[in-house]
């Protein structure tokens, strides 16, 4: 019988001419983290969040303005000439780490990342030569749409406007355009839209392009979400309503880029959440005594927490890799985003599940914030593409094809 094939040299799909990934946090980023953490500790502690999640309006009053407008966090991805901070995905990722750590209800991922990145793709596309269809448009139409996009970006970057891409939260970056919703054929009614209740504006993908529809012209029907800190709603916009921002080709690419940035930075939210879960579990098991010993001194429990720490070491590297690859526009950014999602969504869920288990009965109570983390982690596992979808993307990108 034939012996196994002699393996060939390892492949590296990354372009060797690209800059090495920077996987560390810079001092500026740590300063930003400290500022966001201080704000959230002051204004959005777990008890404050717990006090609002059942009201249908979980967003803490004034917090969005403080973070998005006063601190400028909403404009991190937006260049200064378009009214933003001219920072990058690396800094936005740090904000998300802190929002994940505190399980804060804020439309940051949806508005400041996904919607903003989608519009940025359109803005950059209109400055370049453009695709076939933009060339075929009348020049003044293109100019008007471009001014519209620039205006929207400035509004989003300033935090004055919250915009949400009207797709189900579960939509993966590689999803078809416009995303079809099972059971809702060819409708302008989209269920499962995250933070729709906070939106001033919807970006609506339609067959003929991407539209900007003011919330006043849409119907928003709240749903009951698993994660009470990220409200979901069904959004219905009248067919053809709103302003068309671009044709189908440019819109498809822009939506994909918005979702890719969202998936990549969601990994940082998952990282922050998992870090909190482990820290809180370690703190609790050091103090809690059973059998006349701190429960954290039992080897069976120590190994579980140490294993979780190992997973976090990986999650930190994976989330940083995705953020850095998005910031520098590396060729393997889609691969690193998929790797980060496949890994970090699993790690966050495990961290939250361990947090509940190792807190014992206390972890099952409504008063303890462990359930906020568990619900967010489980919801995040489905958000912006499940781990399986991201693994399918990896298989295609690195040439590990499934069985024929």
């Amino acid at each position, binding site marked *: *019988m*034939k*012996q*196994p*094939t002699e*393996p*060939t040299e*390892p*492949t*590296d*799909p*990354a372009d060797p001419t690209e800059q*090495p*990934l*920077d*996987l*560390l946090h810079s001092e500026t980023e740590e300063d930003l983290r400290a500022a966001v953490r201080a704000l959230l500790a002051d204004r959005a502690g777990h008890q404050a969040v717990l006090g609002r999640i059942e009201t249908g309006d979980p967003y803490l009053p004034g917090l969005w303005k403080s973070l998005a407008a006063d601190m400028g966090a909403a404009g991190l991805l937006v260049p200064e000439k378009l009214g933003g901070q001219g920072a990058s995905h690396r800094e936005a990722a740090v904000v998300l780490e802190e929002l994940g750590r505190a399980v804060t209800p804020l439309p940051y991922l949806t508005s400041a990342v996904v919607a903003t990145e989608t519009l940025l793709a359109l803005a950059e596309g209109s400055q370049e030569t453009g695709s076939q269809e933009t060339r075929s448009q009348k020049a003044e139409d293109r100019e008007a749409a471009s001014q519209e996009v620039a205006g929207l970006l400035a509004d989003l970057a300033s935090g004055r406007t919250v915009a949400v891409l009207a797709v189900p939260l579960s939509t993966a970056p590689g999803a078809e355009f416009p995303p079809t919703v099972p059971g809702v054929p060819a409708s302008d009614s989209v269920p499962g839209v995250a933070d729709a209740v906070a939106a001033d504006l919807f970006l609506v993908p339609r067959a003929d392009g991407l539209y900007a529809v003011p919330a006043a012209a849409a119907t928003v029907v709240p749903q009951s979400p698993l994660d009470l800190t990220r409200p979901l709603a069904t959004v219905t916009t009248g067919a053809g309503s709103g302003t068309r921002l671009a044709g189908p080709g440019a819109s498809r690419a822009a939506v994909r880029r918005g979702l890719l940035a969202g998936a990549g930075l969601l990994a940082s939210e998952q990282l922050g959440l998992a870090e909190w879960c*482990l820290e809180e579990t*370690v703190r609790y*098991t*050091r103090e809690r005594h059973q059998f006349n*010993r*701190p429960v*954290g*001194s*039992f*080897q069976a*429990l*120590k*190994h579980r*927490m*140490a*294993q979780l*720490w*190992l997973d976090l*070491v*990986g*999650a*930190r*590297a*994976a989330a*940083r*890799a995705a953020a850095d690859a998005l910031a520098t526009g590396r060729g393997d950014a889609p691969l690193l985003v998929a*790797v980060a999602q*496949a*890994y970090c969504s699993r790690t966050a869920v495990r961290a939250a599940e361990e947090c509940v288990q190792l807190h014992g009965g206390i972890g099952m109570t409504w008063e303890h914030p462990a359930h906020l983390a568990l619900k967010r982690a489980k919801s995040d596992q489905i958000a912006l593409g499940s781990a399986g979808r991201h*693994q399918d993307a*990896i*298989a295609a990108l*690195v*040439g*590990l*094809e*499934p*069985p*024929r």
Partner: protein
Amino acid sequence: MTGAEELRVLTRKLLDEHPPAGTDRTDFLRARFDAGLAWVHYPVGLGGLDAPRALQSVVDAELAAAGAPDNDPRRIGIGLGMAAPTVLAHGSDEVKRRFLRPLWVGEEVWCQLFSEPGAGSDLAALATRAVRDDAGDWIVDGQKVWTSSAHVARWAILIARTDPDAPKHRGITYFVCDMTDPGVEVRPLRQITGEAEFNEVFLTGVRIPDAHRLGEVGDGWRVAQTTLMNERVSIGGARVPREGGMIGKAATTWRERPELRTHDLHRRLLDLWVDAEVARLSGERLRQQLVAGRPGPEGSAMKLAFARLNQAISGLEVELLGDEGLLYGEWEMRRPELVDFTGRDAGYRYLRSKGNSIEGGTSEVLLNIVAERVLGLPPEPRNDKDVAWKDLAR
């Protein structure tokens, strides 16, 4: 302090004076050591220039570009990673001058006489005795085990019990042992893979001069911590390409043998591919932390992650090969000079990787270390700390 540009100049000067093409390999390596470019963070005169450790990469890159020979770090890994830092930290000036140059150049291979049949994870329980004779030399009797490279080693780092009346951690002393002493007997230890990469070492009346003691009498446990810490830090130095380790072998088999594919294996292979890529990124992040002068505790994480991954990936690869996975290359006993984790066939990789979670500290012991030293969890109660070694139950 020596900067990057100065190191570049010194490296080019070395290359000018000793062109790699026309220079004997050993002569070149000796010249590199004497120029202080062996390990730049070591002291002047001992192979270094007291430069920041991170700048070694500047020298290495220049030398690699010029095609200069290297000192085969895999072959002398124990000497480089464990003996050298311990000799540097605890040896006399004479000992440092005697041992470091031939160690680095590779003229003298080192091994490590730590573990014993009755003292593996509980290393401080060791029973090998060292007794001082009238001349002031030490006479060593005992047995060591799992000793890689003992059959090719010239020197060994050795810990032995010098005070059985003291508690187990306090009665140990650290020595450099001459492997050519007539009292040293090395026997191959045939392993699960069929080959004998490890050895048993029997020590009978081995004479060690007091000058070859590292650190104070009875302070060997603390000296050994230098060795063990360096063992864990030595990982993460090199940049690994994507699919650079065990996963590359499995991925290649997957790509080249479509007839072997199943949906179950596909899903599991992708899980492991993601884990391997994340482990690679974690190693890269650790390396960047070291270069930035901010070493983290992630070194022990890397060893744990790679042990689990190597075992899972090689196990999957055997399964993927199906009928061929039922076969094994050859069982003939060999005594390799190098440890080769990814070499030979999938069956070998599967069996050899079982050692990854045992050698250099078991995964269970490392998890305890992470839990206690990184996370700050309380230690388990112990009843062996203040009892004389001779009174412990065995």
